[in-house]
């Protein structure tokens, strides 16, 4: 008996030792140097009159001129508002449907082909359809963004519910928890799955928001990009690429912050 336990212990030690060098971990910031160097070379050796590759300082000039026209912040605000509303709606719908589908005992998996088809529909193709049916307005953008970003949340919630440990689900039953309290316990334990879904959904939602604005010319950063492209204002195109990049970065850090603050209660996850 003692031998046996000592045994498993040594195996665990070995495993954890190897885990420490399994190649995960955050990339150090030094890694930004090549990108910085590229931009610097571009700035110093670039052709000041290039149509295709305007120098970085012209990007910032373009951002500044957008700001002076009062377009920059209002567009960012419009994009952010669509994005945030859709994320809220998508999270609510995705969690609710995911929990429902996860709790269906009889072959919830049989819906897979349909779900697979729907979630693989390219959002880009749906934008014109939504525009023609619903008209070109913010509501249409919301519908499209929700439709494309709900899937990761739905599917991850569902598999979190399906993978609930049998011990937990039987203890929920044993404790006689029903209705509201039952679902709140379930949401609690499915939380890591829901958050994983949100993390995947958030960048997607941002891209589809920009895409909807870009294709239908709805006010927002996407529309700014479209008009910059149509005017062949290449400095502005690069400038807005930068703006979109910063937006993506902000979205990622917010999602990570939420995740960190919620998940620290859950302890380290195995997956």
């Amino acid at each position: 008996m003692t031998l046996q336990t000592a045994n498993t212990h040594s195996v665990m030690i070995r495993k954890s030792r190897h885990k420490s060098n399994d190649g995960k971990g955050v990339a150090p910031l030094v890694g930004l140097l090549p990108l910085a160097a590229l931009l610097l070379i571009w700035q110093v050796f670039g052709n000041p009159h290039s149509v295709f590759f305007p120098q970085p300082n012209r990007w910032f000039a373009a951002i500044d001129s957008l700001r002076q026209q009062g377009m920059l912040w209002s567009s960012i605000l419009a994009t952010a508002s669509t994005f945030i509303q859709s994320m809220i709606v998508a999270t609510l719908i995705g969690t609710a449907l995911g929990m429902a589908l996860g709790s269906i005992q009889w072959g919830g998996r049989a819906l897979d082909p349909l779900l697979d088809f729907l979630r693989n529909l390219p959002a880009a193709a749906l934008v014109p359809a939504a525009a023609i049916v619903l008209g070109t307005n913010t509501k249409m953008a919301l519908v499209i963004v929700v439709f494309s970003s709900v899937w990761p949340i739905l599917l991850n919630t569902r598999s979190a519910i399906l993978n609930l440990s049998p011990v937990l689900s039987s203890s929920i039953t044993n404790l006689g928890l029903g209705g509201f309290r039952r679902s709140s316990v379930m949401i609690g334990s499915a939380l890591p799955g829901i958050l994983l879904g949100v993390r995947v959904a958030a960048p997607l939602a941002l891209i589809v928001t920009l895409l909807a604005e870009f294709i239908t010319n709805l006010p927002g950063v996407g529309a700014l990009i479209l008009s910059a492209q149509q005017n062949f204002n290449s400095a502005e195109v690069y400038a807005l690429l930068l703006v979109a990049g910063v937006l993506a970065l902000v979205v990622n850090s917010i999602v990570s912050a939420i995740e960190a603050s919620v998940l620290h209660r859950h302890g380290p996850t195995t997956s």
Partner: protein
Amino acid sequence: MPELIKQDEVVYQVLDLSVNLRRRGQERVILESLSFDVLKKECLSIVGPSGTGKTTLLRALAGLVPYSGSVKFHGETLNGPASDVVLVFQDYVNALLRWRTVQKNVALGIEGRIPKEQCQERIDEAIETVGLQNYRDSYPWELSGGMQQRVQIARALAMKPKVLLFDEPFGSLDAMTREGLQDELLRVRSVFQTTCVFITHDIDEAVYLGDRLMLLSGSPASLTFELDIPLGASRNQILTKESGEFLGYRHQVYEQMRKAHGGSQATG
């Protein structure tokens, strides 16, 4: 004793070996000032509690970790993995290639280096030695733990090594399987006449398999006890383990191990 041994009988000559390892940014002395020889065709058991650095010692002999002091293999200073030495890892799951069949796993070390026919012969021989003829085309994950460890041993044997280093190879197997493999190992050794260094924390196993035994203990670890085990070549799970000699050796090792721990009972 050593002065009586002829130089060509010595496989490993270890003098004042120390190993420092970096773990979580901290440099730690794992092994301090070990000196011993490994003789031709013998099986040397090294026993010690978990976490003393037995694996590190074996990895040093395999040429997988940097060391200070002197390790001579057949009279030449060891730097990097020597030819004719193969290490059998404890963690067979990760040491085998899950995408290759048993046969292809065994081939890993020799394929493309020797003529095809000869290669196939060696593979067949190694697989038959460990009794896996019927599983040539199975994948490792289709086999039990004991069988997977046999595959690893066969892969080592196919290299025709002069020295086999075993890192607690049976540590994560159940008692029955472990005893079966111990006897298998004795048999393989008597056929191939390979020199073995066998590491384990299981005193029974160390005594049963070893011609000689060394105790590694302390932190940093050093060799605290050495014992010859002249039980002969043919050993038997029941008879040998019940014999007075076996029990006597076992007793001595237990005593020494407890002494090394300062008299305190090691419970966990």
